[in-house]
Structures are given as C-alpha cells and as structure tokens.
C-alpha cells in the first residue's frame, strides 16, 4: 500500500537527517529512485521548486513526493492530498518527538558527552553524503551517461554552457559586487538562461 510506504520511507528520512534541509537531499534522492517514484531529472526539478516555495525544503519535498504518489493511487486527487499529508507528517514526526523528549527530560541533551562524540562521526559522514550527491548530480546533468546499449558519456552542451554562465554571474555578484546571491535569484536566473539559450540557439 502506497500510503504506508510513504509514511515509513519519510519517517526513515526524517530520522536519519542531520544538520538541516540539504542533509535530506541524499536520502530523498535514494528513496525516490529506489522506489521508482521519480527520475533523477524530476528529482532535480523538485529541488528547484522547493527552493522557490516558502518553508523548510524537507517539508516541500515530502509534500511533493506524497502528492505525486498519492494521486497515482486509485483515490485520485484526494489520494494526492492524503499522500502529501502522510509524507509531510512522517518527515517531521521524528524531529518533533525527539525535541519534545529533550524539552521534557534533559535540558542539556546536546552537551551529553557521548552524543557529542557520536556527532563527531555523523557530521563528516553527512557532509560527505551531500558532497558526493552534489558531484553525482553535477555529472548527471552536465555529462549524462548513456547506459542503454554500450556505455557512453555524452556532453550536454547547453547545460554546460548555462552552468558556467551561472557560476560566472555568481562570482561577479559575490566577489566583485560583494553582494549576496539569494537562492531564489539563482533559480530564476537559471530559468531565464534556460529560456534565452534555448530560444536564441546560442549553442
């Protein structure tokens, strides 16, 4: 049953994510790919949507995946609502319960010696997961590997061009103009460049 599946998968994601929204990206990616809920391309689009909508990225992603899978069930549009609600509650439930227990019993939970020690191991792993996912996504977007038939690496010229333009504009904004580049600005810039480059046939 898809709803139970959604609940358990997002409960797991909520439980094993440390250090904020970006820490969730490797786990969500793994989950949607493994269950065949989304392609990698759809997954990256979803992150783009999460960046431009308000609220924590974790909730955005849970709601989106839940809606997509729920509406594919026999319940239709209501299934979509139910699926997104279930996934969203599941993803915040571990945080809510752990934090509640902490608030009630231990004030200095974070200063417990062994918890601190365990985190010294968890933190580098969590950051390594984000880094490797970022690099995998980078190579998949810019140099997609064709695994049907003989394995071959292709160059996605349009994407490489847009990516370099984005990086260039980002460097100008942050290093030359000394201003901050907001994620929403970066996503909108990407959308604009996507339109311009494809319609003018720049490349």
């Amino acid at each position, binding site marked *: 049953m898809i709803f139970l599946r959604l609940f358990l998968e997002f409960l797991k994601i909520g*439980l*094993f994510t*440390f250090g*904020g929204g*970006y820490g969730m*990206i*490797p786990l969500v990616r*793994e989950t949607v790919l493994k269950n065949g809920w989304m392609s990698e391309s759809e997954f*990256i689009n979803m992150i*783009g*949507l999460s*960046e*431009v909508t*308000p*609220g*924590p*990225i*974790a*909730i955005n992603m849970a*709601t989106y995946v839940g*809606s997509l899978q729920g*509406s594919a069930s026999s319940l239709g*549009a209501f299934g979509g609502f139910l699926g997104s*609600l279930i996934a969203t509650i599941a*993803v915040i439930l571990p*945080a809510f319960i752990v*934090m*509640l227990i*902490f*608030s*009630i019993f231990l004030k200095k939970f*974070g200063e417990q010696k062994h918890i601190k*020690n365990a*985190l*010294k*191991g968890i*933190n*580098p*792993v969590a950051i*390594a*997961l*984000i*880094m*490797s996912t*970022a690099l995998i996504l980078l190579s998949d977007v*810019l140099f997609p590997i064709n695994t049907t038939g003989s394995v071959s690496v292709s160059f996605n010229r349009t*994407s490489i061009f847009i990516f370099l333009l*984005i*990086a260039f504009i*980002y460097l100008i904004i942050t290093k030359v103009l000394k201003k901050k580049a*907001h*994620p*929403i600005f970066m*996503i909108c*810039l990407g*959308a604009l460049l*996507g*339109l311009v480059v*494809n*319609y003018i046939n720049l490349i």
Partner: protein
Amino acid sequence: MNCLMKSEEAKKVSSWKLFLTFMKLGLFSFGGGAAMLMLIKEEIVTKKGWMSEEELAEMVGLSESTPGPIAINLATYLGYRKHGFLGALCATLGVMVPTFLIMFIVSMFFRNLMQYEPVQYAFIGVKCAVVFLILRVAFSLAKQVKSSSFAVILFLIVAILMILFHYLNIDFSAIYFILIGLFLGLLVYSLIIPLTQKHKEEVKK
C-alpha cells in the same frame, strides 16, 4: 523575587499566538534553513523577546545534534517552553501547514505545466542552478570538516565510496553510512582516545 515572577509571567504565550508566529516564519522563509534563521532571530529574539540570542545560538547547536529540519526542532522546543505539549504541537503545525498547502498546490499544477515547451526549456536552466546551489552548500559545509584528521579521513572515504557505489550500481543506503559514522564517532572519541590517554598517564607514572 519580583523579577523572577515577571519572567515566569512572560513565559506564557497562547497556543494560537505560537501557531500564528511560526506560520509567519514558515511563510516568509525561502530557500532553506539559513534564511529562516535570520528571520527567527528578528522575530523571536528582537521583536518578541521569547528567547535571548545566546539561547538561540545554543538551540541551533542543539538542532544539529537532533534529526530533522531546524525549523521544526526550534518550533517544538520553543512551543513546549511557552505552552507545554499543546504549544509544541501548535508551533510545529504552524511551520508545517502553510508550507504544506502551498507545495501541495504547486505539485498539482506543475505536472501539467511541464508539457509546455517554454517550461521545459526554463527547467533545463533551473536544473543547472539547483546543481550549482547544492555544490555551493556542499563546499561551504566541507570547510567544517578540517577540524580533525579523523573527520577528514571519514569524509573522504564516505564521499569516494558513495560515488563508486553510484557508478557500479551497488545498492548501499546512505543510512548505513550515517550509522557507521555514529558508531565510529563513539568508538574513537568515547573508547579509544580515553583509553590511550589513560595508558599514557600510567606510563608516565
């Protein structure tokens, strides 16, 4: 005494108010945790005076040691302190409800939008921007790793293994890596380092 009573009095905030405040925080924070933190500081510390800046900093540190989004951790913690279990529930729902509703509506329309050519073209660029943003976060987080050689080695091994497993199509969940990290952190810092220190002291004697 009077001062203490005043601070006790100031602690009580209605659940409804907690719900509304965190709803506002959820609605006006775009682009994840860091952006939200600025907003939380302004609203909770400066405007409402519900907690001090030091408390907030402590809280953020604590959020890193508990699972889940920082916004939820903070809502639950502050909600509980201001109005018990009901307060925790209302503050958490406050963050969740608007985010959830907006994303649900977006999810219903987005699939239909994707059949139009301009949207597809725009999303070729959006994908590049998303990858750029994640890379940027990954590199700024990686700077934290330098603190110890244990962290650097663990970081490199996990990152290389993850990429290898991806290309070799080996099914190994990221959750196992997190659990291995937890185990190694305890092993090294709670067991091996205290033992070797004890041993050194004995040798000295």
